[in-house]
């Protein structure tokens, strides 16, 4: 509870004494490029395989001859858009982005780079952290959409290569009963997760004390806490928005 209070104080300090919008904008773009390039490969690999595995497993479970094979495509789409793409992608990003945010800030803290900013009269929290959160807002949804697309592609490939269903059937399934709100829902979730990962990891890194060992510890903690927060938020979002 005390940590949570400190976390809220930290968030409010981000908005005080900010730098000019131009600097904030430039820093955000820099961070976004960094996060994006850093993670696009792993997100692509993970989402393609998740789509493929989902397709194969559904087809394995779907033994009833009365249900058309195209249902597999439908189910892959639903699972991917609603849950797998936003949540798994964010969990992957928590590992990739969260640890790099916490490690980077922790190193800056213990090597007194944060103090150097403060001595210059710069609000180090807003200078360092705010762009990371904004960059995450920008990048997470893009990566989630990429993941949706690749995951569905993965399902298509797995389905046709394993002979579970024809490409034509898969596409028929994909196109049936489409609810566009589900995409909106996934994007809202990805924004929530973006905030959680960036803010929690920044908090862990920014308040690192000690040496290299503590920086490593802060990174680990950033990842575990982010993942737990994502899962809780996932549940809450489903309750509130579906």
């Amino acid at each position, binding site marked *: 509870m005390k940590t949570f209070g400190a976390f809220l104080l930290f968030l409010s300090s981000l908005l005080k004494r900010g*730098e000019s919008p131009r*600097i904030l904008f430039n820093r955000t773009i820099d961070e976004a490029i960094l996060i994006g390039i850093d993670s696009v490969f792993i997100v692509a690999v993970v989402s393609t395989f998740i789509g493929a595995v989902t397709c194969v497993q559904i087809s394995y479970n779907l033994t009833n001859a009365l249900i058309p094979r195209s249902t597999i495509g439908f189910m892959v789409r639903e699972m991917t858009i609603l849950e797998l793409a936003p949540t798994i992608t964010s969990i992957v990003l928590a590992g990739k982005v969260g640890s790099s945010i916490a490690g980077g800030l922790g*190193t*800056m803290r213990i*090597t*007194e*780079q944060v*103090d*150097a900013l*403060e*001595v*210059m*009269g*710069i609000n180090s929290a807003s200078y360092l952290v705010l762009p990371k959160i904004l960059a995450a807002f920008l990048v997470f949804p893009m990566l989630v959409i990429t993941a949706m697309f690749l995951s569905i592609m993965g399902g298509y490939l797995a389905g046709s290569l394993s002979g579970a269903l024809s490409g034509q059937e898969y596409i028929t399934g994909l196109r049936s009963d489409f609810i566009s709100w589900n995409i909106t829902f996934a994007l809202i979730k990805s924004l929530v997760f973006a905030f959680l990962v960036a803010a929690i990891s920044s908090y862990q890194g920014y308040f690192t004390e000690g040496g290299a060992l503590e920086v490593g510890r802060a990174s680990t903690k950033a990842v575990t806490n982010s993942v737990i927060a994502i899962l809780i938020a996932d549940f809450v979002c489903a309750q509130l928005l579906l």
Partner: protein
Amino acid sequence: MIEIHNIHKTFNGTKVLDGISGNFESGKMNMLLGASGTGKSVLLKCIVGLVKPDLGSITYDGRIFANNKLDIKQEIRRKIGMLFQGSALFDSMTVSENVEFPLRMLSDMNRTDRLDRVQFCLKRVGLENAGNKMPSELSGGMKKRVGIARAIAPHCTYLFCDEPNSGLDPLTAITIDELIKEITLEYDITTIVVTHDMNSVLEYGDNVMFLYKGKKLWEGHSSTIMDTNVKELNDFIFSNRLMRDAKKVEQIEEEERQEEERHEEEQNRSDR
């Protein structure tokens, strides 16, 4: 001039600074001397506002530096340059970008003026060709030089150095001390140097403040420090064998001189 008055600081129940007062003059090398863990860095951080003292006041040329007066604090901070113990260069930026950084953030200079100033400062510290290097490619001494260049880039009036020559070989250490002294005199800066190195104190110090377990035990000009009769300071100075030997040599020389004087006097007397 920077004046501090009755600074107290406690961390989790341990008293780290116990009522320290003093003045730091401009154009002088003001040194904070003391063993490790006596609170030198904490005092320096209190003075620049990185640590909030529990009690006490700090004034910069008569202007009170306090948390509740944010605009004055910000204004003073723009005139502060600080060299950190580990240099604290921003490791995602090149050397030039590091030196340019305070100018970009704090001044309204245009880009050409900024780059001129960066080149000037790098040249001043003898690194005019290292502008495009990353901090990770630099040696310890070069990092300190870049740190100094970054500190003086915005025309600082106050310069703080936390153990500027620790972790350097003796020769590099001397050049860094020398550079700080030159800059201090050149721009009439109020410089405070934290050190535990008696060589720096004797060679480059002007006013010296000796801290021991959070208290100020001695204060004076560096030329008088060897004559102190404060036990802790004596122990500190002569904990170093070289210093002990130096003192011995000094004593022997002094005795010889007195002997000679006596001799001469006797001769004079017998001549008359």
